[in-house]
């Protein structure tokens, strides 16, 4: 059995009297893609925020590769290998597409603090950013300011920034939300490609069941902030708790 790359232990956060994430204990192995599902307001994004450090835990711990990171801030966690893409697109709008990617590659390589070099002069950084652009089929837009991109392309870039970061733990929060049908496969292929990296783990918050079926090795279900189910996709989807908490309602909506 491989060791857990990421673990949360009784992870809890309270906002006033409301318990948004309720004592979630869960481990994530390397080489695994875990889909996190649950109805709106179940605490999926809040759980992500607790893991990546955007909000502080009221109780419990987060461990990355065995190291307790509960008290570290966002940027420290990121440098240890925790990478996150956001549900609401969260880019550098005034800068070009290429510059957005270069900033991430440069951050990972720790080259931000050089004051007298020229920004474009680091060939390795530029090449890596350009390769990623090609995989996303965004080469033609390299010099465009991000603020002028379509929503779909901004979503693609959001995912690309995380891939450029090359973390140990990838956290995708509804990566294909609002994308058109022909755009989503590019992003999903990229995520599927990441599964070849068996020393990494991938967390994916997703609503679309077909996406989950094709990508997930495991599903965990959050309901009212608590862990309601955990297991292989077929078993979890069939279980009563999911039918009640999530699937059933979704089906009714449809």
């Amino acid at each position: 059995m491989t060791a857990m790359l990421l673990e949360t232990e009784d992870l809890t956060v309270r906002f006033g009297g409301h318990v948004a994430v309720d004592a979630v204990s869960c481990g994530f192995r390397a080489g695994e893609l875990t889909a996190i599902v649950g109805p709106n307001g179940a605490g999926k994004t809040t759980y992500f925020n607790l893991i990546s450090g955007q909000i502080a835990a009221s109780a419990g711990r987060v461990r990355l590769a065995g190291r307790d990171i509960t008290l570290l801030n966002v940027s420290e966690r990121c440098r240890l290998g925790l990478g996150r893409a956001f549900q609401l697109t969260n880019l550098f709008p005034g800068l070009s597409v290429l510059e957005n990617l270069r900033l991430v590659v440069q951050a990972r390589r720790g080259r931000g603090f050089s004051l007298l070099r020229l920004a474009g002069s680091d060939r390795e950084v530029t090449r890596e950013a350009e390769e990623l652009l090609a995989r996303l089929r965004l080469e033609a837009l390299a010099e465009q300011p991000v603020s002028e991109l379509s929503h779909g392309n901004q979503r693609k870039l959001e995912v690309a920034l995380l891939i450029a970061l090359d973390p140990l733990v990838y956290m995708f929060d509804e990566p294909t939300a609002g994308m058109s049908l022909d755009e989503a496969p590019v992003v999903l292929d990229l995520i599927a490609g990441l599964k070849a990296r068996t020393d990494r783990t991938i967390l994916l918050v997703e609503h679309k069941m077909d996406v989950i079926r094709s990508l997930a090795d495991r599903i965990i279900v959050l309901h009212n902030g608590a862990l309601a189910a955990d297991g292989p996709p077929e078993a979890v989807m069939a279980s009563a708790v999911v039918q009640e908490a999530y699937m059933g309602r979704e089906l009714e909506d449809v």
Partner: protein
Amino acid sequence: MIRLFSGDGPRSTILALILIVIGLALAFAPFLFPGVRALETAARICIFVVLAASYDLLLGYTGIVSFAHTMFFGLGAYGVALASTHMGRGFTALGVGTLAGLAAAVALALVIGLFSLRVRAIFFAMITLAVASAVTVLASQLSAVTGGEDGLVYQIPRALGPAMRLDREIAGVTITGKILNYYVVFAISLVLFLLMLRIVNSPFGRVLQAIRENDFRAEAIGYRVVRYRVTATCLSAGFAALAGSLWAIWLRYVGPGTTLSFEIMLDILLMVVIGGMGTIWGAALGATLMVLAQSYLQNLMALAAGATEALPILSRLLDPDRWLLWLGVLFILSVYFFPTGIVGRLRARAAR
């Protein structure tokens, strides 16, 4: 040359032409525009270009609002003034004063930055306002050290003073120490300006822009945002202090009114906004226009008032005493028509 140096050209033909004209006019100012007043204006432009550019490094590139920029400017100026007063005239005094002013400015920026930038950028604005006011009060009250409201008058090396004359003329102009002094100011300002242009176009400069655009994401991709903000603050303070030292060497006088006052702080803010925030070129353009307006708007208005003498109300309105009113009108118009500054507007035009 500029393209090679920073990779960040003016990116607009009109802008490039304007900047070349400004650069050439400043480079040959003593010969093109003889007279004490013109030379004073040219030196003031050089120094305020550096000062506005250093403020833009903070405001335009990093997105931090500071009200203490004149304090750092003043520290550089008082450094030179105090050293020249106590060590006697000489280049050593200028060097020691400049370095001491620079060190004090960077150290103070570091303390203010570490203390306040950890919390929120808006907190920094309030702290700088408080510290800057305190320093201004101190400078005017500690008369024994700073000369109080009267300031300090001191001597600079003879070679840079107006009394020194070379026995030769170039292009019909007698070379005096004042002209040499101007070229010291011009050359150092040029070097500082190009250095800042280089810094904002470095990987570090890109991170500053990223922080301005989205500090939340900059943090989430692993940048130590506080460290970058504090470094930008220290750099900006350092360049402002060096501009202050040049100002002190040029004026041979330092007082609260010429270095620390809130009016100068406002001038710097206007220069950056008029020229265009987030471009070092904009700071250069804004500073030039602003200093020219301050120096010559009154003359221009006297001419206009004379020409319109026959029209009662108009000539009254154009009275030179009302120049501040017109400066205000010009500012409002420029912000209204160029919300992204003159540089932003010209670049947008060129991109079309």
